[in-house]
């Protein structure tokens, strides 16, 4: 091919990639970048759905109110409680499940597929099911506890138990999800490396701790970060299970923003909580990432 032809082809190539990518870029800007900027802007206004014609800029007043709001510390605490609780438990149990699913035997593929089902099930269905499970009298959980003569707490009406109930119900989808992610990492660990360690006399536990775990660290970090992000945005499993209650005992930032903005119409104030939430996510994800890098 002569030089001129090559140049033309290159030009066409670049054009084609632009044509392929830019419609998506424009759509993304429309549905995410502009609303994102709008949330930042709204947080500086007193925008209210009932008086939407007369809103004005009020500077950082929303943030001042948020700092003095007696509910704020509890809601931030609840959010971190949920995020740290679900991430720690789901990832730990999920790692165990992934190890169980790793080996090769007949029927394993079917078993792996069945573990995918909770992940695919609509979160609203999961939430409704668990609400029935946690029901005081007619629920299966307290019935099971009564069969083995254990106390049967009022799960969803007790401020100390509402969040644990949310976390327990989260395990049903969260554990398989973490397991599937970590399984992909486990399957990528070099067999030669494990066998070499074994023939050097390492026990199975030592092989796992010194060979397998370091090898899956990148996947582990991503699984942790994804779980963090997903827990921050958890909605159905709180709104339908506990409605954030009793009181605000299980209200997280995500639910609080929805309620403040769309139930109490205070969109500007809700946006300020939105900014707080983004900052919190960025800080925790960044912290997690930095900690993992230092470990490596």
């Amino acid at each position, binding site marked *: 091919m002569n030089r001129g032809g090559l140049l033309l082809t290159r030009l066409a190539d670049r054009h084609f990639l632009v044509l392929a990518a830019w419609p998506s870029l424009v759509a993304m800007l429309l549905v995410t970048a502009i609303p994102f900027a709008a*949330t930042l802007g709204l947080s500086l206004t007193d925008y209210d759905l009932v008086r*939407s014609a007369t809103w004005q800029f009020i500077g950082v007043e929303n943030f001042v109110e948020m700092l003095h709001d007696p509910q704020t510390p509890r809601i931030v605490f609840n959010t971190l409680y949920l995020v740290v609780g679900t991430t720690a438990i789901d990832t730990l149990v999920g790692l165990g499940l992934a190890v169980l699913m790793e080996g090769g035997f007949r029927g394993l593929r079917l078993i792996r597929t*069945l573990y995918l*089902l909770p992940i695919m099930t609509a979160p*609203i269905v999961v939430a409704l099911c668990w609400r*029935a499970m946690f029901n005081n009298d007619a629920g299966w959980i307290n019935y099971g506890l009564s069969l083995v003569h254990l106390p049967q707490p009022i799960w969803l009406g007790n401020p100390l138990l509402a969040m644990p109930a949310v976390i327990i119900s989260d395990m049903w989808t969260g554990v398989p999800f973490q397991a599937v992610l970590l399984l992909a990492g486990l399957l990528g660990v070099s067999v030669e490396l494990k066998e070499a360690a074994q023939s050097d006399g390492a026990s199975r536990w030592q092989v796992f701790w010194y060979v397998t775990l370091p090898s899956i660290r990148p996947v582990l970090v991503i699984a942790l970060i994804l779980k963090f*992000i997903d827990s921050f945005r958890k909605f159905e499993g709180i709104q339908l299970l506990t409605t954030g209650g009793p009181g605000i005992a299980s209200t997280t930032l995500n639910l609080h923003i929805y309620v403040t903005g769309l139930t109490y119409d205070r969109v500007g104030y809700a946006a300020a909580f939105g900014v707080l939430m983004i900052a919190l996510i960025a800080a925790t994800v960044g912290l997690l990432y930095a900690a993992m890098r230092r470990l490596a």
Partner: protein
Amino acid sequence: MKRFRRRRGDLIVRLGLLVFGLCVIAIPYMWIVLTAIKRPVDAAAVPPLLLSPTTFNNFVKLVDDNYFKSLLNSVIIAGLTTASTLVLGVPAGYAFARGRFPGRAFLGGWLLFSRMVPPVIFIIPLFLFFHDLGLIDSFGGLMLAYMTGLLPFAIWMSASYFADIPLDIEDAARVDGCTRYQAFVLTALPLALPGIVTVANLIAIAAWGEYFVPLILAGPNTTPATVGVVNFVGYDAINWGAMAAAALTLVVPVFLLTVAAQRGLLRGLTAGAVKG
């Protein structure tokens, strides 16, 4: 021999634990099925009844409450969302996997960032915009809003599938005189098709299960089944039977799709994590 016996015992323990885990996972599904065919009085019995007289009245109640209209809406929304997201996302994924173009770094960075931001940040402003644009309670508006989460996913996933296809084949097609567009449509797209089918499955399942977006942006004409099912939760009492019957209609299609597409789904769910 000793080693063999140990491995065998090991296998039995693992299988036992895995099956036990599956039993735990099955419990809520069992509850749905059993409650869907119970009379309301049995569904609320204390202590709970595992088995009781069978009835199909709960499904009749679904018809009476016009629940099937919302199920149809779910099908429309999932179809529209999957089609539009693929049409936009697959070419963009290809561009990502195949080289540099102006805006690549920005688009890539924004995709990652938007994955981090919770939907509530996007959807409340969209509610205000849609209100002014008359897009509340419209299928088009819902489709746009569903894209906030699903378009980045489609781009990311299809890029990972295109990256697996050797460049040589496209180069050969180009040497034979294909334009870049022809090379994409005639060689890369068919080779990536199994992957794209997986992406389509995952997007359809996600759109089918979406609750938060339609809760805010749908209306009487477009309410999908995920929002419709909550109608059976009243302020004072819950119609557990009808609710379970409705839940069953949401679960069964996904069950079938998951089992049919099992192989691709596992890879689809994890591709992002393994490749980073």
